[in-house]
């Protein structure tokens, strides 16, 4: 995972709430076995509408998505994060995220920045007034700046640290391999085991 400190780029105002992961990427695209190349699938249903905000040339090359509350609810598909990332987004801003989506973002280097809803509206207004304006997201200072407006965002300290350092989660956990092995020595016999296979009588 690459280190992430600041992101500057075009921001897209997505004035919708409850953007579930089925909307971010419909299930038909989940049949792929690769982890990249999902940019065409992002918001596939909505992009068929020429009026959809992502089709506005003013927002070409966008890096930041500013969405309404409850972004990324529903299915656990990490493909939603891959699609956003492959399209070019490095940051998603919302006042509230689906828990699994937020976790997936942190693992894949996509910054899910939680901003109070009144500040989301202010950001939307700035971007709408000047489509294509450069927005800067500063993970060190935990701020989003657009024009003369600067607002704060929340992210948990641990995720922030991992993003800043670009750390791989599995590598971190494997530092505790001894503790895991020790835990396994007193795992009770009744706990489930899938092997050897036992068949229905």
């Amino acid at each position, binding site marked *: 995972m690459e280190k992430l400190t600041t992101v500057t780029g075009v921001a897209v105002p997505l004035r919708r709430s409850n953007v579930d992961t089925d909307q971010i990427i419909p299930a038909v695209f989940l049949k792929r076995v690769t982890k990249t190349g999902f940019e065409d699938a992002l918001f596939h249903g909505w992009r068929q509408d020429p009026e959809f905000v992502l089709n506005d040339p003013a927002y070409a090359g966008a890096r930041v998505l500013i969405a309404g509350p409850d972004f990324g609810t529903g299915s656990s598909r990490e493909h939603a994060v891959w699609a956003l990332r492959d399209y070019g987004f490095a940051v998603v801003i919302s006042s509230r995220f689906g828990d699994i989506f937020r976790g997936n973002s942190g693992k894949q280097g996509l910054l899910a920045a939680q901003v*109070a809803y009144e500040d989301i509206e202010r950001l939307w207004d700035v971007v709408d007034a000047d489509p294509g304006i450069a927005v800067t997201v500063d993970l060190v200072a935990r701020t989003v700046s657009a024009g003369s407006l600067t607002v704060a965002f929340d992210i948990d300290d641990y995720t922030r640290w991992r993003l800043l350092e670009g750390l791989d989660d599995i590598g971190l956990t494997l530092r505790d391999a001894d503790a895991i092995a020790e835990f396994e020595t007193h795992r009770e016999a009744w706990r489930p085991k899938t092997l050897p296979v036992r068949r229905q009588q």
Partner: protein
Amino acid sequence: MNAADPANDAVPANSTIPASTATPDPAATARPRTLAEKVWDAHLVKKGEDGTPDLIYIDLHLVHEVTSPQAFDGLRLAGRPVRRPDLTIATEDHNTPTLDIDKPIADLTSRTQIETLRRNAAEFGIRLHSLGDAEQGIVHVVGPQLGLTMPGITVVCGDSHTSTHGAFGAMAFGIGTSEVEHVLATQTLPLKPFKTMAINVEGSLRPGVTAKDIILAVIAKIGTGGGQGYVLEYRGSAIRALSMDGRMTICNMSIEAGARAGMVAPDETTFAYLKGRPHAPEGADWDEAVAYWQTLATDEGATFDAEVFIDADELEPFVTWGTNPGQGVSLSDNVPDPASIADQHERAAAERALDYMDLQPGTPLKAIPVDAVFMGSCTNSRIEDLRAFASIVQGRRKADGVRVMVVPGSARVRLEAEAEGLDKVFEEFGAEWRFAGCSMCLGMNPDQLAPGERCASTSNRNFEGRQGKGGRTHLVSPLVAAATAIRGTLSSPWDLEQDPARESVGATTEGN
């Protein structure tokens, strides 16, 4: 949740009671604890410090074809093995066809994905139940039916409906593909403790009202974001009275309220379901397990971070009218008027939803005709669900022009249903009796709605395009699905003509 977030208005102020703010300390075992805290504490490999997460051990990892290929790729790239193949099991469900399962899968990308899982399972030594195997089926039906899902364990799967397994008193939640890879490599996950919310459902359900109606009412009450950050514990006399299949239906849709996990304390119903299943403990292990499981219920005096109360006596058959699962009402109501919704986001979402659903405010829900009825999904495809559906449709014919599809949750459920003659009941009714899989719940296989088609579905999500591009979904219980298939419009079993020979209908479905 952030108290300053206006979207929190989705949780009615009078339905949640802020409770203890004390930080859980697993070392202080004398402190009364909730079911969720007990299971969490028993899986602590390492307690997090200075803002780092806890490291939690995972007892059971369920795998399917859609969210695993990139995880196995990650292992290969890093040269890592699967740490515990003996705690891992895979099945094929999302992509699998429900017709002609003995032929090669026609959709090439689906076939590739399933073949990829088969290759990965062989390479990494993971048990796999493939299409055609008696234990193949929806991953959340397979785990419990094999007796692998049990109280007091942790269960994960790259699927948000993993919350289903919480019905046994397990801590079970969906994860993303990065976390799938993490569990494959380490059998653990770094996690921050969840907050706890009690969902108290007291009273008795009337005949014709089921577990599905309880959970749809819960989601309508707390909203699709109301459970975010929480594990929900379903409690109260109405929950205790439910069978395991009914409890699974409820826990299954916890994610639709935003909660990653939902739980029910284990009791005699749980133990009776488990005993004798292929992977349930035996002999002295069984006795030890039951003794431990009996200690798991939330302690007297334990506090929840929030509480919600639902009166089971007042519940009616429920249905969704919109495009998120929180947009639901009693079936006897009308399509709501967005103008009457105070919260601006809810109002805007309702306007969009009615537009997509092609519904007019004020229309009686029961006046809405459907094109299709889908009976299936990890929410409602277990044997009791099929029996409930059959109890209504037996001896009747479906409405003209309505397509009715019945998809069992697993090959084992299909065999069981056929042994009881349910397949004949469905076929005589005019329904299609299919092979097991996720099917039209999300339309990754050929089972999809056509654009504009309207479906009464026993599944879990009414999102735009979920069941097929342009398709419109109304979430309902198996009983409502059956009544709707008979009448051709959204209907409750209460709307069917009374037939003295059918007095058993309520009795056979109450426990569901």
